């Protein structure tokens, strides 16, 4: 849509600067609204999906009362949360307490912006997209600590300390794994990275298949990402059975919902990053090479992108409802003793691969051998 802004503003070249500014602001606001609307719709779908998946795994039905198949359950939940009493504890640090949910929510949704949903659909085509997402999602840990400290509750404090330790630790394997993938397209722009993965029937040139190191990186990234979004088996910051509800113990109603939605938003973002960097983004497999109308291609690309993202989200849900939770020190062990060294190894390996083979992937090498 940045492209759209440029297009419109250049066509308004003869209009006054004020008009151009106004048009730009309007376009930005509209795109922000669109992102928010889509994201909120996704949240609703995700909470519904989570409960249905949990029901399926746990041999029960899940929501089935509100609307057909319980599809409108999330609307009912939202309304319920909206009309709940908003409690601010008497001894809470008011400003920190009130501010935290907004920052969590904003940071989580700001990460939706640079994602490339199809060749032409993206909110902003940032040339530092990957860096931006990593940076903005780190803000979440600060907001969590704000809320935890501001609640003035000991369980919240435990949760906050755990969350910060965990999120900051796991950022390292995440960034290292992303680097191992990013050095191949040599770009931080989401769209460039996806375009780099075109060809090979839209499957075989995915970065995950490029070389053994990126293959490993994908799994390191995915495990670390589950920890980054605080989901079982790494949900220790909000471990219900240990520290009640962790950093959001004291939050009620919509403030709680903001934390809750941020978690689902983060799930989407980390899955989208994994899709973009490792799984070919919106590349349509097999039929992608055929010629087709632009609109059809766009629709297919968006569908493919979301399908890949939702598959990863489903895997996260599946893991959540299957595994027990690690202890906090075991979690740190996993990060510092296993994931971080492996991620370093991957980064070095991928760099050497790029240096020696000039970025040609396993598919290209095999294809080259077959042709000769």
């Amino acid at each position, binding site marked *: 849509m940045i492209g759209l802004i440029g297009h419109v503003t250049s066509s308004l070249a003869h209009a006054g600067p004020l008009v151009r500014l106004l048009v730009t602001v309007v376009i930005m606001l509209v795109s922000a609204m669109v992102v928010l609307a889509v994201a909120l719709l996704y949240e609703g779908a995700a909470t519904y999906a989570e409960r249905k998946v*949990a029901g399926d*795994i*746990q*041999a*029960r039905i899940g929501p089935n009362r509100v609307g057909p198949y319980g599809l409108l359950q999330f609307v009912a939940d939202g309304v319920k949360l909206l009309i709940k009493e908003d409690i601010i504890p008497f001894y809470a640090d008011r400003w920190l307490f009130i501010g935290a949910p907004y920052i969590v929510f904003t940071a989580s949704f700001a990460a939706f912006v640079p994602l490339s949903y199809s060749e032409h659909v993206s909110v902003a085509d940032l040339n530092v997209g990957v860096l931006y997402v990593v940076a903005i999602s780190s803000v979440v840990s600060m907001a969590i600590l704000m809320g935890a400290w501001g609640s003035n509750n*000991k*369980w919240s404090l*435990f949760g906050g*300390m755990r969350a910060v330790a965990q999120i900051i630790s796991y950022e390292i394997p995440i960034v290292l794994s992303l680097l191992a993938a990013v050095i191949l397209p040599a770009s931080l722009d989401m769209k460039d990275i996806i375009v780099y993965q075109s060809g090979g029937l839209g499957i075989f040139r995915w970065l995950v298949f490029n070389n053994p190191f990126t293959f490993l990186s994908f799994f390191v990234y995915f495990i670390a990402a589950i920890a980054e979004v605080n989901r*079982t*088996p790494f*949900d*220790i910051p909000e*471990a*219900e*059975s*240990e*520290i*009640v509800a962790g950093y959001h113990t004291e939050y009620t109603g919509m403030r709680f919902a903001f934390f809750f939605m941020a978690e689902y938003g983060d799930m989407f973002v980390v899955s989208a990053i994994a899709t973009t960097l490792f799984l070919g983004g919106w590349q349509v497999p097999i039929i992608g090479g055929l010629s087709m109308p632009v609109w059809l291609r766009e629709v297919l690309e968006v569908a493919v992108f979301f399908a890949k993202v939702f598959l990863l989200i489903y895997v996260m849900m599946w893991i959540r*409802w*299957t*595994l*027990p*939770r*690690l*202890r*906090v*020190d*075991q979690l740190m062990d996993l990060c510092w003793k296993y994931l971080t060294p492996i991620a370093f190894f991957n980064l070095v390996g991928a760099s050497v691969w790029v240096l020696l083979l000039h970025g040609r992937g396993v598919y290209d090498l095999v294809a080259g051998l077959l042709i000769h």
Partner: protein
Amino acid sequence: MAVADEKFMQVSMGPQHPSTHGVLRLLVRTDGEVLSSVKPYIGYLHRGLEKIAERVTYPQFTPFTDRLDYLASMNCNLAYAMTVERLLGIEIPRRAQVIRVIMAELNRISSHLIAFGSLSSDMGAFTPFLFGIREREAINDLFEMVCGARLTFNYIRIGGVSQDLPEGFTDRTKEFLDYFPAKIREYNDLLSYNSIFIKRLADIAVIRPEDAFDYGITGPNLRASGIRWDLRRAEPYLVYNELDFDVPVGRGEMGTTGDAWDRYMMRIYEMEQSAKIVGQCLGMLAPGDHTAKVPRVLKPPVGEAYVRAENPRGELGFYLISDGSTKPYRLKIRTPSFANLSIVPKLGKGVMIADLIAIIGSLDIILPEIDR
């Protein structure tokens, strides 16, 4: 209680906390995540049952025993009925004895299912809990057939049981026993041998045999420490001496003998054995009376009796003194969870918060029986 020691943070865990298994309050002093001391505070559920016993007639107290260990009401009924019967010198018909064993063992299974499930949800895996509940439903259905109740049964009465087994009970029980072993295998695949679960429980909170004796630990918790002591074998009551079953003991399969994993695994092994016992008892059911001839008004001769029985959580003992009237002169209840809880301050020194949850969960305490 004062702010004397500023090195530690004092946290009150409970009486409202997700994993204190009722209204237990643990006063915890922590240095970060590591506990320096744990002190259980009990009494939130005190109902004065022992005093009530002095004001009601002997049969009138039976329903109160339902409320001792509400997850194993049949076993509590049984121990009380046996105590009064010893005072009265009543001989129980054989059919009633076999029915009692069936009920006691079915209830042992259903109680262990809850122990299994609640420990798993304490460890952050919610699915096994619901799997446990699913099988417990089947047992509840059986109990509903015989007495109409699903929680507080009041089925085992002084002299026998309240009514004979209904038609179809044996078939439905056999049906349950047929599929139950497969479910236990499912639990083991899902949870028992899960490496995260083992990591969380193995070598945690080891109870050495001498400590177990010192603190009066009984039941599966004692056997997990490697001591083969089961009242059903050591002092057989009812028809237990005719039955073929093993008494599993902890062997330190995943770590040290007597660790939390061993205590957990005792429950799984005992469910297998109990299913075996129920199967044998169904074959031993011969036509006969379901209750002995008991006078309408019970006036036991002056004297006293102490009877203990192997409950799912350990030895439950009733000490009854009769003064020849229709009401007990004094009733003292020895409940297993009370003794089992007493070791928590010793085990809880220097462990992490998450381990404390594992300790409470693996001891499988139940509060109404502690507070009485």
